[in-house]
């Protein structure tokens, strides 16, 4: 049952990066779009994202619940030593979630929109940035439960070049996912070409940010290269991601939005796989080498068993409903655009 729980945890994180990430990306793109295209970008984006908006962010809750029920020691260690970036992420989540709804449901369109929109776009940027920092800090081995002073216990646990680089990389991934998503939502050729050009640029930005991560890892003496290329499955994942990236350049020009999205999703999945595989079952690397592992730090057998069943039963309800939600609104949007 423990493996069922771990698969759910990993999948919830992946889906949060993919779906929540595309959502964050929508805000980031809005920030990067010139004023004349802003309104159009926004409309195209939210017609599609609106109905599934709330659901996208539920994956984070699922992941957190799995952590604190099944792996309490891991959850509490992260909570204590990564308190500050977690608060940063939470502020982003609050600001973003509310600003999005507020700007759609304000009955009067006036200067308050000028308040909601900046809050929305900037929080779209900081939330994945802190998410990236938290993820990187989990594996950068700087968390030190033996530390005596405030800075080394609660600040240097996460503040280093590697974490910052991963934070930036995460932001670029979100922008990438959103751009690829939006190409399929465009109704006019001009819009489509606009976003295809944008997608090309963003792919280069992502690759640049990825290179930054490796550079930062080198400076911080984190054996990232060894982790990623050290074992066969990780290596295969990276090669597969690279091939699909090349494929993507060919597909971009053609009108194959679904294939494009699948390729983008595949790449991010492979990156997450490569990043997590080499540590598995460890999930939290501590400074003194006493790593926290999903297998040795799991809850008692009965807890894991009921958690596993709860997740399995839950997914019977959630997945079909979610798929139907996405299907029906995608279909309806497409039908509407045909007329």
């Amino acid at each position: 049952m423990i493996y069922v729980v771990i698969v759910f945890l990993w999948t919830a994180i992946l889906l949060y990066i993919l779906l929540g990430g595309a959502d964050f990306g929508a805000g980031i793109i809005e920030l990067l779009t010139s004023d004349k295209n802003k309104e159009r970008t926004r409309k195209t984006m939210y017609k599609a994202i609106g109905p599934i908006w709330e659901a996208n962010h539920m994956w984070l809750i699922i992941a957190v619940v799995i952590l604190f029920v099944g792996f309490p020691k891991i959850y509490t260690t992260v909570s204590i030593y990564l308190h500050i970036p977690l608060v940063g992420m939470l502020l982003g989540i609050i600001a973003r979630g509310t600003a999005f709804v507020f700007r759609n449901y304000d009955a009067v369109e006036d200067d308050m929109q000028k308040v909601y929109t900046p809050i929305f776009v900037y929080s779209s940027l900081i939330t994945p940035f802190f998410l990236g920092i938290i993820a990187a800090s989990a594996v950068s081995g700087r968390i030190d439960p033996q530390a005596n002073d405030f800075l080394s216990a609660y600040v240097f646990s996460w503040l280093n070049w590697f974490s910052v680089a991963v934070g930036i990389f995460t932001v670029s991934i979100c922008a990438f996912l959103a751009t690829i998503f939006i190409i399929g939502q465009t109704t006019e050729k001009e819009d489509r070409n606009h976003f295809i050009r944008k997608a090309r640029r963003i792919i280069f930005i992502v690759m640049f940010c990825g290179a930054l991560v490796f550079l930062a890892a080198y400076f911080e003496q984190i054996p990232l290269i060894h982790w990623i290329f050290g074992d066969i499955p990780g290596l295969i994942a990276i090669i597969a991601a690279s091939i699909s990236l090349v494929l993507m350049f060919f597909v971009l020009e053609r009108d194959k939005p679904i294939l494009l999205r699948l390729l983008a999703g595949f790449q991010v999945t492979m990156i997450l796989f490569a990043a997590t595989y080499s540590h598995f079952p460890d999930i939290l690397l501590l400074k003194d080498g006493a790593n926290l592992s999903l297998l040795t730090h799991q809850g008692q057998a009965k807890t894991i068993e009921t958690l596993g069943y709860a997740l399995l039963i839950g997914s019977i309800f959630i997945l079909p409903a979610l798929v139907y939600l996405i299907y029906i609104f995608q279909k309806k949007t497409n039908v509407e655009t045909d007329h």
Partner: protein
Amino acid sequence: MDDFLAARLQMAFSLGFHIVFACIGMVMPFFMSLAHFYWLKTKKKVYRDVTKAWSAGVAIFFATGAVSGTVLSFELGLLWPKFMEHAGPIFGMPFSLEGTAFFIEAIALGFYLYGWNRLNPWFHWATGVVVGISGLLSGILVVAANAWMNSPAGFDYIDGQYLNIDPVKAMFNDAWFSQALHMTVAAFVSTGFAVAGVHALMILKGKNVAFHSMAFRIAAIFATVFACLQPLSGDISAKDVAKRQPAKLAAMEAHFHTERNAPLIIGGIPDTARKTVDYAIRIPGLLSFMTTGDFNGEVKGLDSVPKADHPPVAVTHYAFQIMVGLGMAMVGLSLLYFLALWKKKLWLRSTWLLKLFVVATPMGFIALEAGWTVTEVGRQPWIIHGVMRTADAVTPMPGIAYSFYLFTAVYISLAVIVSLLLYRQITMVGKLYNSSSEVPKS
């Protein structure tokens, strides 16, 4: 500010903020679905307009409730890591089920809000009902987790170790039913009175009277029926607390000494040093009767537990008085309303009854916050009753006071913006939904 106090205050603010949004988010969908049902049945446009207006409210409150709930799921660890390390695996069952219920709610809300003219009308209506039901389930599950802190079950605590964990037993602990029942009814009462009060005010102002009257009628019937049920569930809760947490009941009642024929103490100022309550009204024997069913029954006082395990008496006592007082006021108003509906139809057209509803607008929510204060403060000094102290659970990170200031500022700003949004939604009703002027077709 002391870090421990800051952590407690931050948690209290976060919960106090979240609970308002959570309640509205789980109850308003029922109001909305009822109005929607009438629209589908009668095709009177005013019902559709009320439905749409309320669904905008649901969207705003759900989103705010969802993010504040997400924050709470992290705050449990950020503020109380030592509690979560042990409690997580035991009381996690309701949380993992709640994750599903909440997810379903979000999906159903997506269907509902964007489904107008896109889905089969009755399927669309059903998704609204699912929003309500799954919201209600989420609420019940989270309360079951809270109940576990009052009534720990499903594990053996041996030499500081938490052994033989049984998450199912933990979920169905002794307190879950009485707490969940009391809370669910409270959610209907507080949301009902808040919504009814707002619409009553708009009727008094003479704006879009047809629209607001329709909305008022739906909200008021929920509010009043549930308000009259609440004392019954309160009675179940009080008897339960008396049995399981005598110190909490003693603090609620400022009942210092164990005695038979114990009086019910109403109001007054508790003095913990002299162990008396000044200026209080005492009804002899009533407390014994209410908790044991016998006027001569023994009620444990604060002296039955060691001094170190006493909860703060004054706060718990005042909060309890506020909750019961407001609860009774709402029962009174509900009875007047029933009388108006059955015998005195004229009252329905008078302004004084509506004015009373306007006065009652915040009462439910104040009572709700007071009730949670009783539950949470009355449980102190324990975070897990009788097992772990709150002071032992707090995070080792210093500087929590700053985090408290930060989150307080965020919650206050959010409250201001949400109020502004609601004000605008309500004042714009005439422009957004101009059904009041239309004559319903056949």
